[in-house]
C-alpha cells in the first residue's frame, strides 16, 4: 500500500492507500464479486486491474449485472 490518494468511486469521494485498481477493489470489499470496471471513462478489463496504477483524482466506475430494457 502506498500514499493516500483521493479518488472518486461510483460518483462518491474516497480515500485509499491502494496502488492499483485490483488493490482498490479488495480494500473496498469487492473481492470475488462479479463486477466490471472503468477508470477515467475507459474500460479496464479484469486481467489488467493489477497493472493499472491509480492516480489522485481518478474516477473509477464499478458495475455489476442489473435489470434492463
Amino acid at each position, binding site marked *: 500500500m502506498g500514499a493516500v490518494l483521493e479518488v472518486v468511486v*461510483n*460518483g462518491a469521494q474516497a480515500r485509499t492507500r491502494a496502488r492499483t485498481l485490483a488493490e482498490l477493489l479488495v480494500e*473496498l*470489499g*469487492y473481492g470475488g*464479486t*462479479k*463486477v*466490471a*470496471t*472503468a477508470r477515467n*471513462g*475507459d*474500460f479496464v*478489463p*479484469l486481467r489488467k486491474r493489477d497493472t493499472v496504477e491509480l492516480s489522485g483524482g481518478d474516477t473509477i*466506475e*464499478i*458495475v*455489476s*449485472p*442489473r*435489470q*434492463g*430494457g
Partner: protein
Amino acid sequence: MTDTMANMKPDARRPAVGRDSLEVYGTGLGSRLFLGTAQYPSPQVLERAVKAAGVDVVTVSVRREGARDKGGQRFWELISGLGVRVLPNTAGCRTAREAIATAEMARELFDTDWVKVEVIANDDTLQPDLFGLVEATTTLVREGFKVFPYTTEDLGAAERLLAAGCQLLMPWGAPIGTGRGLANPYALRTLRNYFPGVPLIVDAGIGAPSHAAQAMEMGFDAVLLNTAVAKAGDPVAMAEAFGAAVRAGRTAFVAGMMEVRDMAAPSTPVAGTPFFDLK
C-alpha cells in the same frame, strides 16, 4: 427512392410456410419477442413472465454496485437460471464514449459479444442520438461486438449503421416507456420496404399486444418491449398475451393479408341472390 423500394411489394418478403425462423448474427431464434427485465414487482414475477412469454432473449444492463450490495450477483444468478440469451444494453449513455465503455464492461460481465447500443439525445423523448450511435457502433463493430443499434426510422442513419457492420436494426416504435405503439407507421413501413433483407426489430414504445401484432403484420422481424409487461396489472398474463400477439402477427404476415379497399365488396356471392330481378 430506389427502384427496389418502389417495386417492393410486401408479399415479396414473405418466407415459405414452414421455413420461417429468425436469424440474428448467425443465431437462430425460436421466438420473435425480446423481453426486458426491468421494473417487475419481484424477481419471481420476472422469472414467470419470461417463461410465460416464451422468449429466447432478454435484455439486461450494467449499473453501479456498492461493495456490500450483492444485488448484481443475485440478479445474475436469476438470469443464468432462465436458460435464455442475454442482450446487454447501454441505456442511459449520452455519448459514444460512455456507450463504448459500458458495452465493454457488459461484454466482460455477461460473457457475450451482443450489445444493444443506446446513445440518448434528449431527456424528454429519450430519442437516440444518431450521430453518437453511428460513432459508437463503428468502434464497437471493430472491437468484435455484434451491435443491435437502437435507432429511429431515419434511412440515412440506417445506411450508416449497416455500412458500419450492423447486420440488423432496431427502430423505435415510440419513445421508451410511453406505450403509444407505432407512432409513425408510414416511416416504419418505408424503412421496412427500403431494407427488405435486413432483420428489423421494433424496440420501445409498445404498449399493447395489438401494437406488437401490428408491427409483425407489417413485416417486422421481431419486437422488443419491457414496460408494457412489467407494469401490467398481471405481468405474467400480459407476457403470455404478448407472446401470442407476436406469433399471431407473424403468422398473418407469412399468410399474406388481403388488400385494403376504399369501397365495400360483398363477401356473399351476388349470383343467385333471391329477388335480384325485383330491384
